[in-house]
């Protein structure tokens, strides 16, 4: 079992956190998110992202609005709700905490 495989569950779990971060930094639509994730360890695909975004919307973390684009049909631009913002703040804190724990435990 390679290390990438070993960490696949962790990456999967972190995807939602990263999506929150991406949406917090900018108003984005799905193709933007895929592009930003595409060059990283967290590269993902529409088949994963759309269901995830719909789940996050059901949980009230993100919302979208339709915006006309200059090329093609209107797009869904996602943004964080108030709940999403506080969730992200918590996750950021927790992530820092986890990192600190890892660097303190052993070497």
């Amino acid at each position, binding site marked *: 079992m390679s290390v990438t495989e070993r960490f696949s569950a962790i990456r999967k779990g972190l995807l939602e956190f990263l999506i929150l971060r991406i949406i917090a930094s900018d108003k984005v639509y799905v*193709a933007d998110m895929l592009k930003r994730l595409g060059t990283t360890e967290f590269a993902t*695909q*529409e088949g994963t992202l759309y269901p995830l975004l719909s789940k996050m919307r059901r949980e009230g973390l993100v919302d979208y609005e339709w915006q006309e684009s200059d090329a093609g049909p209107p797009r869904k631009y996602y943004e964080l709700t108030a709940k999403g913002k506080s969730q992200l703040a918590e996750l950021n804190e927790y992530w820092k905490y986890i990192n600190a724990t890892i660097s303190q435990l052993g070497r």
Partner: protein
Amino acid sequence: MQKVITINLNGNAYQIDETGYAGLVAYLEGAQRQLADNPDRDEIVADLEQAIADKCRGFLGPHKTVVAAAEVEQIIREMGPVDGTGGTQPDDAGADRKARDARTATGAPRRLYLIHEGAMFAGVCNGLAAYAGVDVTIVRIVFLVLGLITKGGFGLVYLALAFVIPSADTSEERAAARGQTFNAQELIDRAKKNYADFKSRRDWRRQWRDARRRWRWHAWSVPPPSPPAGGYGARMMTGLLVPLLSLVSVLCFWFWLWAIYSLVTTNEVLGQALPDDIPLWGGILILVVIYQAVAWPLHNTRRRVVYYSFGGGYQPSIVAWDGVMSLGFGILIVWIAYQYLPEVREIIRTVPDVWDSFTR
């Protein structure tokens, strides 16, 4: 000839051929099944259809109105399997593969380095093989054949390359030597492998000796603490500069020996006679001081150049090469002098006599 089917993807009409259509229907039906329990099923499927439509548009142009089966296949691959759980189950082999593709696709610029891992000698063939993307055995055979054809003369080329090409010491450099983007994953893998090697070979003793030598090297040259390793260019320069400095040092040394010889035998150096009030041993002392004054900065510069460009690391290889090269230059210079300077030939011929008169 393929039948063309017009489809409606979230309100966009597209024409695709029959095989492509079958693939697309299978994909969207699979998505429907996966999302059967999802309250947002219809919306997600509409989003997916829209995404597929956008990708289809990318394949069409003013003179291309039908999306081919292969293109549909590619689109479906890009979309990836639909995850009905909304990202709660750890099953993303697709994303894994894509991440790997992304890594290899955005390759860092490849650079020529010496690669010591698995090298026979200095890692020249290894580095060249990685640079050219061929098997190292092929490069070695080519080198061997060239060596045989030139009756060993090609060995000099190897030596020159070993000296001029910087060696890949950091993980980033090793990655660049193979034209890959450096990533933490490789670092972990390599560290693991190195640790295993380290343990299996049980060469901690050698490692310890190296460490001690390194410490002594630091204490001896007393440089400022831990200078950063130089860049590729700086190290290329070192490769060229160190042999040059060696050559100059060796020239100085032989010139000095010649000056002493000349002083002892003819009581003059370069036509300058030794003043009467200075004894012979005084003249020799002066020559020693002059030699030290010239050679010491040269020697020091050489050491500094090596030291700074390699980030303070003790480089046994470069020191060894330096020694070998100095010796080589020394012999070469004597040989040339013997060939072309009658005086030198005379000196060398008289050396046994001088030796005899000393020992007798």
